[in-house]
């Protein structure tokens, strides 16, 4: 290990979250995009991350019961 050289895939891995959150500055975004154009390994993992976020959001989504909905409505201030 040279200790100084940055592995481009490691760097791309670090940029994954802010990239998908659109939080990178122009320079960082260009670094990530340039690397992703060339690297199928990272591209696949970026696509997976997007799919994973959708999957988790859907998987943990639980609707409230109609009973709770009714109870909440009953908390309204009665009309005079």
């Amino acid at each position, binding site marked *: 290990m040279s200790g100084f050289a940055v592995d481009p895939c490691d760097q791309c*891995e670090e940029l994954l979250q802010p990239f998908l959150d659109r*939080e990178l500055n122009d320079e960082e975004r260009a670094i990530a995009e340039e690397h992703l154009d060339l690297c199928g390994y990272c591209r696949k993992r970026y696509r*997976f991350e997007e799919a*994973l*976020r959708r999957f988790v959001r859907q998987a943990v989504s639980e609707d409230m019961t109609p009973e709770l909905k009714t109870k909440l409505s009953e908390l309204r201030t009665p009309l005079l």
Partner: protein
Amino acid sequence: MGETAPEAQARKLAEGARDRVRFEEEALQLADQVYRVARRLVSSREEAEDLMQETYARAFRSWQSFQPGTNLRAWLLRILTNLNIDRGRRVQRAPDMQPLEEGDYFLYNKLEESTHDSNPDEDRVIDRLSQDDAVSALSAVPHDFRDAIVLVDIGDFSYNDAAQILDIPVGTVMSRLHRGRRILKRELADRAVNGGAEE
């Protein structure tokens, strides 16, 4: 001709009642979305239901402190989060200080290894995760990190809204989100690969 004092008072009362009804209707329309977030901020459905009722009771009582034009869903969740803390339902600060060596590719790499396919597509890899894995992995993420994930990734709040709801700086939301997602991926990997066994 101006209105008389009793007329003015009656008009004011009527306007106040109309505003209140409108507020209550808007708040109730958001209840499904608020519940979906609330359900994952606490560990059981019963807790989430209690919190929802307390939140809506308080919101309806103090509706006049809501500033029209601001984010009502965030306002409701701010009440809910404060009630959750007040009730001592959670330890307010439980930062995970353990070093986390797994990066953002960790979960994919683990799942890919276990597919016995040299180059699977992402959908096949995602298929290795079950809904139960997702629910239990998320609940295993420590509170502080989970709150950030639930608000931003499940509730679709901006970093700014999440910061206001949790009463922490935006930078802290971002760092908790970043770390929390990595913890979540580690938890998912534990569940999906060999049923939680170490390598």
